[in-house]
């Protein structure tokens, strides 16, 4: 996909980007938790598309399998477990909503400004060079350069799993 013509690239990008942002907004604003989850899934899938457009196929797959196929399934599962109709009928936003929105928008604006301060790295390297299909490189980097972090991450996952099990267990079971 990295070799597609530039117009197609822009088309892909803006389509997925718009989809991601739209789904994100809907996710945040949605009243129903399940809808939020679905929109989040949509956003994640759009992001996966962005990855694909960035010729990061492996990451695309990981995103889909882990995020969409694993984590979000967990989310949906839990949502159904603790499903409360009352929750969807209650007020969805807490009291500090307007202040928070304002502040966050200011924050986003400032962060955006960061990319335009002269001398910042984004202006220096402006033309990304094409990265070939790179699953092998990723694997090499993951299992050789980042061996120790990988192991640590796996141990962390194990700990998280055990912790989750313990917390979810009913008392006395």
């Amino acid at each position, binding site marked *: 996909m990295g070799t597609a013509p530039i117009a197609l690239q822009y088309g892909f990008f803006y389509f997925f980007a718009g989809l991601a942002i739209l789904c994100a907004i809907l996710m945040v604003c949605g009243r129903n938790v399940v809808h939020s989850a679905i929109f989040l899934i949509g956003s994640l899938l759009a992001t996966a598309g962005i990855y694909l457009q960035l010729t990061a196929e492996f990451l695309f797959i990981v995103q889909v399998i882990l995020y969409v196929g694993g984590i979000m399934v967990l989310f949906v599962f839990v949502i159904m477990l603790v499903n409360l109709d009352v929750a969807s009928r209650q007020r969805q936003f*807490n009291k*500090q909503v307007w202040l928070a929105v304002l*502040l*966050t928008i200011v*924050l986003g604006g400032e962060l955006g400004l960061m990319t335009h301060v*002269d001398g910042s790295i984004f202006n220096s390297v402006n033309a990304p060079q094409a990265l070939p299909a790179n699953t092998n490189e990723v694997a090499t980097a993951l299992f050789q350069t980042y061996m120790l972090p990988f192991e640590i991450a796996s141990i962390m996952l194990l700990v998280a799993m055990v912790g989750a099990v313990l917390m979810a267990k009913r008392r006395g079971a």
Partner: protein
Amino acid sequence: MVNSLPTAQGLLPFFLAYIWLIPMFPLAGAFLMLLFGRVVRKAVVSAVCVGSVAISFFFACGAFLQLIARPADERVAQVILFEWVPAGVYHLQSGALGRFVADWGFLLDPLSAVMILVVTGVGLLIHIYSTGYMAHEGGYYRFFGYLNLFMFSMLMLVLANNLLLLFVGWEGVGTCSYLLIGFYFHRKSASDAGKKAFIVNRIGDAGFLLGIFLTSAVLGTIRFTEILPALTVSNLPVGAPVLTAIALLFFVGATGKSAQIPLYVWLPDAMEGPTPVSALIHAATMVTAGVYMVTRTNAIFQHAPFAMEVVAGVGAATALFAATIGVLQNDIKKVLAYSTVSQLGYMFLACGVGAFSAGIFHLMTHAFFKGLLFLGAGSVIHAMSGEQDMRKMGGLAKKIPITYWTMLIATLAIAGIFPFAGFLSKDLILGKVYEHGLLLWLVGYFTAGMTAFYMFRLIVLTFHGQSRVEHDVEHHIHESPKSMTIPLIILAGLSIFGGWVGWPEILRGSNHFVHFLAPMITSVQEARVPASEAAQAHLGEVELMLLSEGLVFLGILFAWFLYLKRVDLPEKIKAHTGGLYKLVYNKYYVDEIYDAMFVNRTKDLATSLGSFDNAVINGMGVDGAGWLTRYISTLSMWWDTWIVDGSVRLASRLIWLVSQVARMFQTGLVQSYMLVIVIGVVGFLSYYFWVLRHLHS
């Protein structure tokens, strides 16, 4: 305890090494009495007190023997326990470097040896006597506690090796005399007399203290052993005004303590105290402290001829003056008191003419016979159950023979009948005085006659003639118990033989006593005695003895005639010479004059000062200050309430408000915390951009 000794030899013999213990025994006794005496029986009290004094007397005798066992030029033992007032080094007027150091040191030399013997010996006897005399009195333990305390102070005074420590003892005996004069404090006259003694002594003590200061300033030392070297080092000429001043100041102190004109007035009133007290303190020991002190510092006196003259003059005047008063007194103890004053005058006369050893000799003998007289008087009063007026006595010789005989011996001694102790000492003095000058000799001579007269007047009125005793006391007149008579007998013996240690060469004797004391006396005086007079003095001496003997016998006869044969004559004389009689009888109104001159002026001054005090100090000063303080405090209270507390409350209120605001942040809601985080990030970024803008502009 036997530490660095200025004397040449090394380790001292036992008793000399432990002379510092001599005062300590009575001190211990005093402590025991004043702390626990209330709860123990009289037997224990007397045992402890008399025992302590006996032990110190034993130590004194040991020290004395070990002292005279040494060669004459080494008869000095100094024990310094520790440094009391540390040394201060400073420049004297003479430019030399003075080193003032007052240490807790004890000095035993012939002079102090004689003194401790007298003090402890007579003190022991009087203690024994007191056990009998005070047997029926209240405050038994208190009395003996004071008595022991006095013994301690007196011994400190005598054994001190420097002026300051001597002054400690000096004040100590003063205090004890005050306490003991006012022993019957329920009697106002007694407490007044105590106060009088104390106050009058203050005057003298002030002089003495100034003298001590001046000494340390001029000579740079107050150690007796160093005074003479200091004098020779600071080459002050004989008769230098400074030395004269020092000597005079010392003499002021001496007049205070030893009841000389003009400060003698306290001694007669001191007779309010118990008779043993009068005997011990106001006849034998304390009142002689002045003489001792003058002798102790004779080096200075010898360098101040004028002061010597003053001493001699005052001594002579006092002797005559007191004798004249004594002639007409009716109270037996008053007579003895005035005779004491006059005898002290004798001693000062001797000192004044430079015959210090004679003065000390007379001091010793006087201690014997005057103590005996007082004790006898006490015995008489005891027998008369408290009666002191001689006009209510008479014919007691048969009833209390021991008292009579002992007192007679003492009277003969004081009158100076050969070969009693008084004869030797008094004639030694008179001889010296004759060598010095005729006028003083005449005064002393006449005084001797008067002494004989009034003493025999006392004897006759008390023991002879028909009894004038009131009826109710008549039947239980009785001889005193053994504990009182034995000391009398012992003292009588001493009054006879005690003076023989100073048997003059002229009578084929060798004046041991004077030779013994000789090293104490600095011989600046010899220059002032021309050799020719010294040569003819020997001839004059025997004549003088005979003359005085004659006068004495005349006086005795006069008294016998006047008060035993022609009893009506005194009234006639009184009638004829009314003014003079009245004057003398009222002691020349000295007390009244003093009252008018000093006491009332002092009182007026005190009243005016008091009114000033009330008006100005109290009124304006103290009350004003109080008033001011009150208003300031009201002001500050307002300040405190509204400003200080107000600020505190304001602070707390502010903190409360701030915390109200701060509480809103601590909602416990995660999201609000995260909002705060976002705020922080935004602020940080804004600051970053601000800095960046300033960086680029």
